[in-house]
């Protein structure tokens, strides 16, 4: 047991709970707006087939919602158990969007979900549609606040270190909520949720259309999913590109790692389509490259250079030198709070304090650091390139596949071709792909940020609590069992009630 590293276990625990939670969230995000579209059509046409359609998909939405609710709260537990230093250091900023999410979005969503399920006989059609719309709005608002918090971890704007309280404190709430990284992440993530909901609806509609069952309901569902999915899949790629553009400005190491770009190339850089990255040798094997493409996508120009990993490591050596100065100033201020000279040094080098802490996180006292120690700390900034490189490529491939799938489905449905066909079969087999793409997207965003908990500010290792490996392992096992049972129950209910089909004679 003593061979387990509690920080690695704590990271595994957070990853496991986040990845499980994110199996439920995207379907809620996507299906909620699809329900609004279906119900709005029912309100406009008064055709009961649309109502039966809403009810069928609403039932599956309900199963997913009931299974997913409270699966995110376990991550907040972990801020207190495994990440107590992180919580102190950045809680002043990070806590605000989380609290607003609970107060604003979760309560709205929870209230409206009750009205959606139990208000059919008690409200007018327009009132019920309003409740469904507010339910969709609530789920999306929830994503706004969570992604504002997450966006701040990727690009910590609107905050400054206070040496007297030993934590980061918010300087601008406006900067926090209008952080361009957070905005790009939000629209990309919710669009991915819309794709997930659309693939889900398209696949299940295809299942019934291929069997010739519930045709009236399923052809409507197929057409709505194809249209909404086509718009969403185009958005997810365009907005993902915006996210990548932001990354090139704020997280250059992550960008270089995703692209397996060890050396800086003359602008515009080539895009590596295929490679086997070797982190130890800092090179790629079996590369296949497309000239100029990465430079054009990543910088939207012909002449802006994208730095490679080796150059970024060299630049980090300089930032760590500044960080050592900031760290020494912090130590001096803690000894003598009236040391104005030290406060001036900290003010001048404070933006690189995190790099001094990075050195500390590698077990080296910044006051005693040698050049070799500094370079070794810089090398820890290079994430594992292989999983990032391939996670990103599989995610992007899924994104382009969804565009093709929805375009074909849209073409078929616009021509009224709902008889069993190969597009329906492709849709059915594509059912797991949105979840695969979304989970890989999370890995790219969060694993790619390592070794930082907060980019350039707080190394992950310094944010961890002083918990023992057995303690973290116990809670990790408990969470994994809990979530696995939930997932099995969810899949069982989902498959059972999806196969049963709509409860109507309309078809």
């Amino acid at each position, binding site marked *: 047991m003593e061979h387990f590293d509690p920080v690695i276990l704590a990271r595994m625990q957070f990853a496991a709970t986040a990845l499980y939670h994110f199996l439920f969230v995207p379907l809620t995000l996507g299906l909620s707006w699809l329900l609004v579209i279906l119900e709005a059509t029912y309100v406009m046409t008064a055709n009961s087939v649309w109502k039966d359609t809403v*009810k069928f998909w*609403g039932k599956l939405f*309900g199963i997913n919602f009931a299974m997913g609710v*409270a699966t995110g709260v376990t991550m907040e537990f972990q801020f207190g158990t495994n990440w107590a230093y992180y919580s102190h250091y950045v809680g002043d900023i990070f806590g605000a969007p989380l609290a607003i999410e609970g107060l604003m979005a979760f309560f709205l969503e929870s209230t409206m979900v009750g009205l959606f399920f139990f208000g059919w006989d008690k409200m007018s059609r327009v009132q019920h549609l309003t409740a469904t719309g507010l339910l969709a709005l609530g789920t999306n608002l929830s994503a706004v606040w969570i992604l504002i918090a997450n966006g701040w971890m990727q690009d910590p704007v609107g905050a400054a270190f206070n040496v007297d309280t030993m934590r980061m404190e918010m300087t601008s709430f406006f900067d926090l909520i209008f952080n361009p990284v957070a905005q790009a992440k939000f629209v990309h993530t919710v669009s991915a949720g819309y794709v997930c909901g659309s693939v889900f609806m398209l696949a299940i509609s295809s299942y019934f259309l291929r069997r010739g069952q519930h045709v009236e309901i399923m052809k409507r569902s197929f057409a709505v999913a194809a249209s909404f999915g086509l718009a969403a899949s185009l958005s997810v790629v365009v907005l993902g590109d915006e996210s990548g553009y932001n990354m090139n400005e704020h997280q250059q190491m992550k960008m270089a790692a995703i692209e397996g770009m060890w050396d800086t190339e003359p602008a515009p850089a080539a895009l590596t389509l295929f490679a086997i990255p070797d982190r130890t040798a800092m090179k790629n094997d079996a590369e296949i490259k497309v000239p100029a493409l990465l430079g054009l996508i990543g910088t939207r120009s012909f002449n802006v250079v994208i730095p490679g990993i080796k150059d970024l490591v060299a630049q980090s050596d300089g930032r760590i030198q500044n960080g050592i100065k900031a760290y020494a100033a912090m130590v001096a201020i803690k000894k003598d709070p009236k040391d104005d000279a030290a406060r001036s040094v900290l003010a001048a080098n404070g933006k690189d304090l995190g790099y001094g802490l990075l050195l500390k996180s590698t077990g080296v006292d910044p006051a005693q650091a040698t050049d070799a120690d500094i370079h070794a700390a810089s090398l820890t900034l290079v994430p594992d390139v292989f999983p990032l490189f391939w996670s990103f490529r599989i995610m992007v491939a899924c994104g382009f596949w969804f565009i093709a799938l929805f375009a074909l489905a849209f073409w078929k449905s616009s021509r009224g071709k709902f008889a069993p066909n190969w597009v329906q079969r492709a849709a059915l087999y594509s059912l797991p792909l949105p979840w695969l793409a979304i989970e890989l997207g999370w890995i790219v965003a969060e694993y790619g940020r390592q070794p930082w908990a907060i980019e350039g500010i707080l190394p992950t290792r*310094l944010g961890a609590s*002083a*918990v023992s490996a057995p303690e973290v392992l116990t*809670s990790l096992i408990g969470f994994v069992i809990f979530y696995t049972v939930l997932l099995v129950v969810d899949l069982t209910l989902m498959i059972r009630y999806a196969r049963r089909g709509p409860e109507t004679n309309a078809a």
Partner: protein
Amino acid sequence: MNGLRNSSNVLRPRLRRSLLAVIVIKVLFLTAFWALVLKPQIHHVDAEMMQQKLISQSVPQPE
């Protein structure tokens, strides 16, 4: 009021009971897990402890 008056609920009683049972079990599990396993692991960190962590204390490294 409209054609919705005689409609049934989206969730049939059996499914509603199943989902309710899942939510209740989930809340009970999380409450028990919190009380027995997680609560004893909660750490409160203040400025002094943060200073200790960042300045004085050596950071344990992975094996």
